[in-house]
């Protein structure tokens, strides 16, 4: 670890904190339907869209209608991706002549993109046409992100409203989020990325003759437009197989730094939106503090582990940390930081190969995802995931003092706690359950790239990542086989929607409740005690759920490595 390394980490945190307030202010205006500085340009387009689709923007929806609208929207998105992947051979924008993607791969990819997972069983440059990248993947990068944010806003409305039956209009929230938040940022961001060297072209792959006279086919494409939303919307599905490690998908140290910022900005700003909507910004800062504590702890461990290197490297006299699977322009610190950010949020882009991380360095990304990606989290998804833990923490606090727990003026009762537990329990069921199947099913076992405990970690990582809708991988595992394509799709589906539906049920029941003013007996939810309590609840619930699985994978591997054992 170096001083300059820690400076990069501190600078990153400082910029995120500085962006949270102004962006939170802007997004609050967008979701309250107020005018913004972009309204003169975008309002006519917005009104036109409502007119075409028959949406009455004044009519709000009950939480069930809101959820059904969201589900219908996803069915359509699924059909678009599946359709263009299967038909890519006969559709335009296919200069590399890619043939139709297989049924199971198309199914997995379609589920993966509508759930904001963006798991890469496809190898971008070797299996997908430009049309699929744009129409299939870029568009769903926008819409799954907009959906996540819309759902978080609906849940916030649940907390902030009193005695109401509705939580907003899904169509309006998605449209406004896409037009006023995601698109304008992406336009500027995309041009910045091109200026750093990211290609943006519809031309075919380039044939070069190297200095030594060999032929090199260089894959290019409309990369920057997709990468902008891939990072901003915490999608993470790469244009290229190597994702953000590919020099075209992340050309410079600056592009890397901005990509890391863009993973966190919207998620962090949503905590401020929450604070503003419930009428006290300090409530938002308290939640951001919980996230910050867990984040910094994770960064410290991964950075330390990667900078220490492996015992194999020490024996050979190699110093400078574990550079296997990392790029020189990022080095140890930017690779470690990126890995923690991308799994804390549900991004899943990678700028280094997590499979080659040290055992403990790779364990932090696993833990981040197993906690449900609540540290900033996926845009929207992170906030509603965190609020579920807050509900539990408040419930625990209520039990300790023997009072009905309340949070931002709302009584937390049996229904909310049951729903929160349902959402929190369904995730381990998926990733632990499928991992158990994966490590005994022969075809699945044959897909492991590494022997010993690391092979187990690969399978655990795959299902954890898909359940948590992250999409990063211990990429040695051969995931593009029917077993992983189908089980993975089920994990992604359950991980997304069985978290959303209980969260929306909570939104509905909270919105209907009366708001009670704080009294002397109200547990303050803006101070250090509250932050500590939530962190504790998260770690205890998380620890009890997945510690045994971690002991079989990364922990035993770390001990084996120190004992000089290789597999």
């Amino acid at each position, binding site marked *: 670890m170096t001083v*300059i390394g820690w*400076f*990069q980490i501190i600078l990153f945190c400082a910029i995120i904190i500085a962006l949270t307030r102004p962006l939170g202010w802007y997004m609050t205006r967008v979701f309250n339907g107020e005018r913004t500085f972009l309204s003169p340009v975008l309002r006519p387009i917005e009104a036109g*869209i409502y007119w075409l*689709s*028959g*949406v009455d923007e004044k009519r709000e929806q009950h939480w069930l209608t809101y959820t*059904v*609208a969201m589900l*219908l*929207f996803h069915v*359509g998105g699924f059909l678009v991706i599946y359709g263009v992947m299967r038909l890519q051979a006969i559709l335009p924008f296919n200069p590399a002549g890619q043939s139709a993607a297989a049924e199971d791969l198309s199914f997995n990819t379609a589920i993966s993109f509508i759930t904001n997972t963006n798991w890469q069983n496809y*190898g971008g*440059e070797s299996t997908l046409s430009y049309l699929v990248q*744009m129409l*299939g993947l870029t*568009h769903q990068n926008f819409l799954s992100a907009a959906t996540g944010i819309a759902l978080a806003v609906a849940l916030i409305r649940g907390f902030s409203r009193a005695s109401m039956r509705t939580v907003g209009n899904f169509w309006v929230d998605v449209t406004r989020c896409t037009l006023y938040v995601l698109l304008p940022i992406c336009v500027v961001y995309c*041009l910045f990325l*091109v*200026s750093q*060297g*990211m290609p*943006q*072209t519809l031309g075919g*792959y380039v044939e070069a*003759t190297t*200095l*030594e006279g060999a032929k*090199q086919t*260089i*894959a290019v494409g409309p990369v*920057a*437009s997709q990468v902008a939303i891939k990072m901003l919307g915490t999608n993470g599905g790469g244009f290229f*197989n*190597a994702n953000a*490690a590919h*020099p*075209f998908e992340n050309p*410079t*140290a*600056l592009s*890397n730094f901005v990509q890391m910022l863009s993973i966190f900005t919207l998620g962090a700003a949503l905590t401020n939106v929450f604070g503003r909507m419930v009428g006290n910004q300090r409530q938002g800062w308290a939640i951001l503090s919980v996230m910050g504590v867990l984040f910094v702890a994770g960064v410290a461990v991964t950075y330390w582990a990667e900078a220490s290197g*492996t015992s*194999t*490297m020490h024996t050979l006299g*190699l110093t400078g940390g574990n*550079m296997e*699977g*990392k790029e020189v322009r*990022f*080095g140890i610190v930017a690779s470690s930081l990126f890995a923690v950010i991308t799994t804390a949020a549900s991004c899943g882009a*990678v700028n280094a190969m997590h*499979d080659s991380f040290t055992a403990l360095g790779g364990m932090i990304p696993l833990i981040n995802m197993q906690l449900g990606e609540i540290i900033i989290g996926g845009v929207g998804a992170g906030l509603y995931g965190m609020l579920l833990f807050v509900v539990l923490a408040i419930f625990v606090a209520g039990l300790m003092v023997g009072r009905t727990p309340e949070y931002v003026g709302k009584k937390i009762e049996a229904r909310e706690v049951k729903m929160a537990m349902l959402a929190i329990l369904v995730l381990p069921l998926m990733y632990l359950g499928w991992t158990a199947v994966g490590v005994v099913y022969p075809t699945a076992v044959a897909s492991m790239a*590494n022997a*010993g405990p*690391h092979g187990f970690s690969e399978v655990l990582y795959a299902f954890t990542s898909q359940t948590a809708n992250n999409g990063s991988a211990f*990429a040695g595992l051969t995931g593009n086989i029917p077993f992983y394509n189908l089980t993975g799709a089920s994990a992604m589906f359950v991980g997304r929607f069985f978290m959303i539906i209980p969260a929306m049920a909570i939104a509905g029941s909270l919105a209907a409740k009366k708001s009670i003013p704080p009294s002397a007996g109200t547990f303050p939810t803006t101070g250090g005690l509250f932050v500590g309590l939530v962190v504790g609840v998260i770690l205890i619930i998380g620890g009890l759920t997945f510690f045994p699985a971690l002991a079989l994978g990364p922990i035993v*591997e770390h001990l084996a*490595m120190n004992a000089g054992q*290789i597999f």
Partner: protein
Amino acid sequence: MLREIRPAIVLLLVLTAITGLAYPLAMTAIAGAIFPAQAQGSLIERGGKVVGSALIGQEFKDDKYFHGRPSATLAPDPNDSTKMVPAPYNAANSGGSNLGPTSKALADRLKEDVDKLKAENPNAVVPVDLVTTSASGLDPDISPEAAQFQVPRVAKARNMPEHTLKQLVASATQGRLLGLLGEPRVNVLALNLALDRVAAK
């Protein structure tokens, strides 16, 4: 509920057209106008022929060139398309080795490469980036130490004085952005092109 079906279909189509077609195509046009070189992939031409991209590493095996990092990229076997075989710096199929910290395959490979480099230059410490594969397999850079490490070999093969090469490496070294972001590095293709230019004089 039924009245949600029309928006589901129409909104999906409209937003798909905006975000999936209008946005990427507009960006392609604008980027091509403002940053034409970058948008095409930062290609480098020499004598009217494309010799590569400034951002994409390429394989150097000859002693008279500086070498990049080992690359783990694969390509379909020309004799049997169901199998993948090693094809370093295949810029149409990026990827890393994905070997873990306790992998025997990785330990063996590291030992073999370290021994080879120690034989080549017994006087210097082997830089870690010169024996580890990059994440993309297309890393265009090596560390300044890795470039200096190769100076004696290149000097011998080209019959050039070592201090000329050391200067060349120093001038090809890029520092951290604002002294803070990223790591110091040397772009191998740019260094070798400069080397060819100096040698031709």
